[in-house]
């Protein structure tokens, strides 16, 4: 077990490095640079003195050879210095740590909601004895997955905020402001959890041990919740680990629609101004969260299913 964890931590460092490096080179390969983006911020086509742009590029080090810029950035990142935002001059770490709590709150609420809604839907669909009800319930998750998140957000805000002013349409204020964005964010995630869990439950319910349990006289509900759910939840858990990444990506859209402050907004403005240090910082944090969550998921497997052993040589392949 400890060897397994150490191995995974080493892998995590590798993932962080790869994410950092890849994002750096993608940003550098994009046409234009942060200095031109700043100069073009007014959108008007007023000319900017080329000599002035050159001087600024020099100041920020964008005139150095790309490999040198990369090593320079990486060296600072290794000692925890992610640099300053080109667009605003604020330290990247400060920008991220200020925005992170809001995004964590949003994604955690959404993930909880997604588990409750998605899990509930899957259980209800597979438990239902009437084929019609089951069919309707089972067709909901594919719908939830395929509808664009921003559309759900706009529809919710239209009804619950503009038509009936039950919730605010924008801002980070209080629990009330959290409801609409969290629900919006939970829909696609919950739908995927429901999809996987329902499929897995249906498969599990066909397994011989379920028949044994039934033959021993266990009630329908008992078999469903005690025997089937536990085994069937492993694939859903795997998916949930991966969905954390998706949640963070969707937060970019949700935070924009609901005008919430958070990591998504920071990312969006950083990408649009090619603010390399900030994007790099967000990528590192995002990769970190992703790696940690998936490690936690892996560590939970043996708790749910004692047959799974965490071995260093054989990474966990859950029954997907």
């Amino acid at each position, binding site marked *: 077990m400890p060897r397994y964890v150490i191995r995974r931590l080493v892998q995590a460092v590798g993932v962080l490095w790869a*994410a950092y490096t*890849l*994002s750096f080179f993608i940003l550098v390969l*994009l*046409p*234009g*640079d942060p*200095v*031109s*983006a*700043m*100069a*073009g*911020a*007014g*959108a*008007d*086509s*007023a*000319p*900017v*003195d*080329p000599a*002035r*742009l050159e001087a*600024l590029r020099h100041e920020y080090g964008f005139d150095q050879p790309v490999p040198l810029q990369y090593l320079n950035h990486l060296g600072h990142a290794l000692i925890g210095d992610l640099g*300053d935002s080109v*667009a*605003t*001059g604020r330290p990247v770490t400060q920008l991220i740590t200020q925005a992170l709590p809001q995004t964590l709150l949003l994604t955690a609420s959404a993930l909880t909601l997604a588990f409750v809604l998605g899990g509930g839907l899957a259980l209800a669909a597979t438990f239902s004895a009437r084929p019609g009800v089951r069919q309707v319930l089972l067709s909901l998750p594919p719908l939830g997955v395929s509808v664009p998140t921003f559309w759900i957000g*706009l529809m919710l*805000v*239209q009804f619950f*905020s*503009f*038509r009936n*002013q039950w919730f*605010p*349409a*924008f*801002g980070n204020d209080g629990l009330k402001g959290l409801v609409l964005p969290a629900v919006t964010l939970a829909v696609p995630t919950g739908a995927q959890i429901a999809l996987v869990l329902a499929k897995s439950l249906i498969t599990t319910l066909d397994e011989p041990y379920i028949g044994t349990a039934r033959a021993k006289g266990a009630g329908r509900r008992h078999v469903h919740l005690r025997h089937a759910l536990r085994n069937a939840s492993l694939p859903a858990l795997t998916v949930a680990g991966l969905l954390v990444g998706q949640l963070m*990506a969707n937060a*970019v*859209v949700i935070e*924009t*629609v*609901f*005008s919430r*402050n958070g990591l998504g*907004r920071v*990312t*969006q*403005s950083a*990408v*649009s*101004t*090619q603010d390399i240090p900030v994007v790099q910082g967000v*990528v590192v944090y*995002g*990769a970190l969260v992703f790696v940690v969550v998936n490690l936690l998921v892996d560590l939970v497997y043996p708790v749910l299913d004692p047959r799974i052993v965490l071995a260093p040589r054989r990474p966990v392949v859950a029954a997907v």
Partner: protein
Amino acid sequence: MGRTLKHAWLNVGLVAGLVVLTGCGGGDSAGSGAGSSSTPKSGGTLTFAVGSDTGCTDPQQVASNDSIYSVRQLVDSLTDQDPQTGKIVPWLAESWDISKDATTFTFHLREGVTFSDGTPLDAEAVKADFEAVPDLGALAGLATGYLAGVEKITADDAQTVTVTFAQPNAQFLQATSTHSLGIVSLASSKLPAPDRCTKGIIGSGPFTLAGYAANQSTTLKKRTGYAWGSSLWKKPGEAYLDQVVFKVLPEAGVRTGSLQSGQVDAIGNVGRADESALESAGVTLEARANPGVVFGLSPNNAHPILKDAAVRQAIGYAIDRQQIADTVFNTGTEPATSVLAHTTPGYEDLSGQLTFDLDKAKSLLEGDGWSAGADGIREKDGKKLSLAITWFANSPTNQPSLELIQQQLKQAGIAVELKQNEISQFATILQTGDFELAWGNVTRADPDILRTQFSTALANFYQVPETGLEKTLTQQAGTVDEAAREKLVARAQEDLVENAYTVPVVELQTKLGVAKRVHDLNFEASSRIQLHDTWVE
């Protein structure tokens, strides 16, 4: 994090960028007044929703309307510009003298003006403010442009400041009325550019900065004891409003819905699609055309096909400007009737030349040796009449306008390819001349913008050839007498249109949505807002 995710982010960024930049318009009806007979009263809060935040609270370093709206209120300017007449009138400067050759500007400041930190606004403060401008960097492009060629700035006595330029620079007087040359305190002038953005500046304006949360909101508080307003303002002394909150709502639909449902009092950037919903909700829509160079196609005049005047002129005649104004832009938008918008001082009505005349376009091309090929696209010496339009995703009206132009030009046998670029490539593309036709506009309430854009002595991005135009543009920059300058500016516009060095298409109109309870939310001369006279019921 693969390319897909990155791509998604980019798209989001782009969409948000579009939303941001929409807000550049204005109307001839300077002022709302919304038809209520009640008398103005002090107090209350105005909540204004904008689409974007550039992350800077220094008026000298912002160029996006969404940011200008709020930070403009923090500072006063030496002069103000009458939106009706374009005339420059007193504000911090009670009077001024300009040398005959337009190189020396002396301003006589009013007494008793203080910054919100209590320090006096005197000649030393103005001198320090202007002297700091060249070091502000990339974000201060507007301000540095206005002060380009400055030779020296002297504080002759406590209330007199003189600015001397190496060359004639008539535009400087109007420049002193803009937000970009608003005066900040001595302490703020000493701060490095990024600090001025993040920590905010100390100004002498009718409002002070009470709070700023990046990408979220900017809060302004009334400056008590304010007593040096512009000579254009109706109310003497302090502003009416106690507080103004600017909320950043990137989604256009959310801005519109929030105004309809009363969650905000006013919004910028009203698009055509949202007009009827807002009007039926009792919202007042206010519009004013942005002064400056209108939206149009600026050719690379050195391009092998486009250096031929007949081709450029044919493009001008093949464009149905009215159709573009009526279908793409917000209601009331006017087709271009000159290179300059009709709200620009010195504007000359050239609607007689800027007509839609497909037959003329065709005969011009025919006479020039371009004959229609099998696919309807014209050819000359085996070469197709095919051109690329370079554009940037900085306004949601760009793409539909250009798709319409693409169809219209096809009728004349001109094939058009649309090349979209990120706004971050803008400077590079113009500098390298790597374009055939570029789509864009520039907001500026002084005709000198023609020199900035088309002078062969400056950047000359559009590769305008050396002609008499250059002399006219230089002359107007050195002419103080208004009537004489207007004549020169008119000649420059005629020259530009006649030779089609640029093809004007449509004016940009800023449209605001304002709730009924809000009164006197006024446009200033650059089609941005002035909140000193604004009051709420």
